[in-house]
């Protein structure tokens, strides 16, 4: 004898059967629809892989370029910051030397300033000159004779070698309010730095624009400060 199911259970079973039928219908519908973006062939897959590889290479190149630009800007920022971070003339000169050595890779260089009579350039700072055999930088002055240096001191134009008649790597004019007051001459780079790079040009431009003005501002401040202290001492003396 077949056992009768309670009416509530029968109703639930019917509902479950209907739901399962509906689910089966939906599954058939989904399977019959074309899958969007689905690769149809191996060639299609290859093409998409090639596109992805091309995108990866482009992104790598962009990242390298971005890192390069960041490095360039870092150098410029640090050089500018440090040049204007002090009002002590000796420290400004030291910063110019540090830029030449640490950022440009100069093993031998000389910082020249026109003397007041403007007939000779004095050597304000130098590095590695003891190994220089040109004889142009002796007795604390630049005797003249290097075509690149002479031209830059004369017309205030930045020059990068090689230039006929010169052994210098670069001659950077130092200008204050449009007047050339001297030059930073790079005579030799470190052996591990074969040549100046394109981004070094930015640093040379920065030195041309900022080094002399920073140095002159520091010298003026130093002189004014000295005078002020002298005057203060005099006033104290008079008041006694």
């Amino acid at each position, binding site marked *: 004898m077949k056992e009768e199911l309670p009416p509530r259970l029968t109703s639930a079973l019917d509902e479950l059967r209907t739901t399962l039928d509906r689910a089966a219908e939906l599954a058939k519908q989904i399977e019959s629809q074309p899958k969007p973006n689905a690769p149809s062939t191996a060639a299609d897959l290859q093409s998409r892989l090639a596109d992805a590889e091309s995108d990866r290479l482009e992104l790598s190149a962009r990242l390298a370029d971005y890192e390069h630009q960041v490095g360039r800007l870092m150098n410029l920022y640090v050089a500018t910051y440090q040049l204007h971070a002090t009002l002590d003339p000796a420290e400004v000169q030291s910063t110019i030397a540090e830029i030449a050595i*640490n950022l440009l890779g100069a093993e031998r260089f000389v910082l020249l300033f026109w003397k007041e009579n403007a007939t000779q350039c004095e050597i304000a700072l130098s590095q590695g000159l003891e190994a220089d055999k040109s004889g142009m930088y002796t007795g604390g002055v630049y005797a003249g004779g290097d075509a690149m240096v002479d031209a830059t001191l004369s017309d205030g134009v930045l020059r990068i070698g090689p230039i006929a008649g010169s052994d210098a790597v670069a001659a950077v004019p130092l200008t204050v309010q449009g007047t050339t007051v001297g030059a930073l001459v790079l005579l030799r780079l470190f052996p591990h730095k074969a040549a100046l790079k394109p981004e070094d040009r930015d640093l040379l431009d920065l030195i041309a624009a900022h080094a002399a003005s920073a140095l002159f501002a520091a010298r003026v401040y130093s002189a004014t400060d000295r005078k002020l202290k002298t005057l203060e001492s005099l006033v104290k003396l008079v008041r006694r």
Partner: protein
Amino acid sequence: MTPRKVLVVDDSKLLHRMYEVMLRQVVLLHAYDGQGGIDLLRKNPDIDLVLLDLNMPIMNGLEFLTVAKADPQLAKVPVIIVTTEGSDAQTKRGLEAGANAYLTKPFDATRLAHVIGSLESP
């Protein structure tokens, strides 16, 4: 390695500023000669990397390495020599003195990060 506290030993203020810009996520301690570097290294046992110049007044980089490597507590801190002297002989001398890596100036942030990343944590 990924250092958290780095000691910079270099007599160039410009380089100290450069490291501040390049290593913003790291705590930096600054010394301007080898002796100052040794003093800071002794006072700060949590320093996990030293960036060391070779040519400095009072105590140069190689002398710094001699003192640091003779002290068992300081010897375990990795040292990267960062200098303008890029000859093979200089590199060999620096590494023989106990440095873990060698980087020549001028350098950029990518090269510095690469050299630091290539070191194993102590």
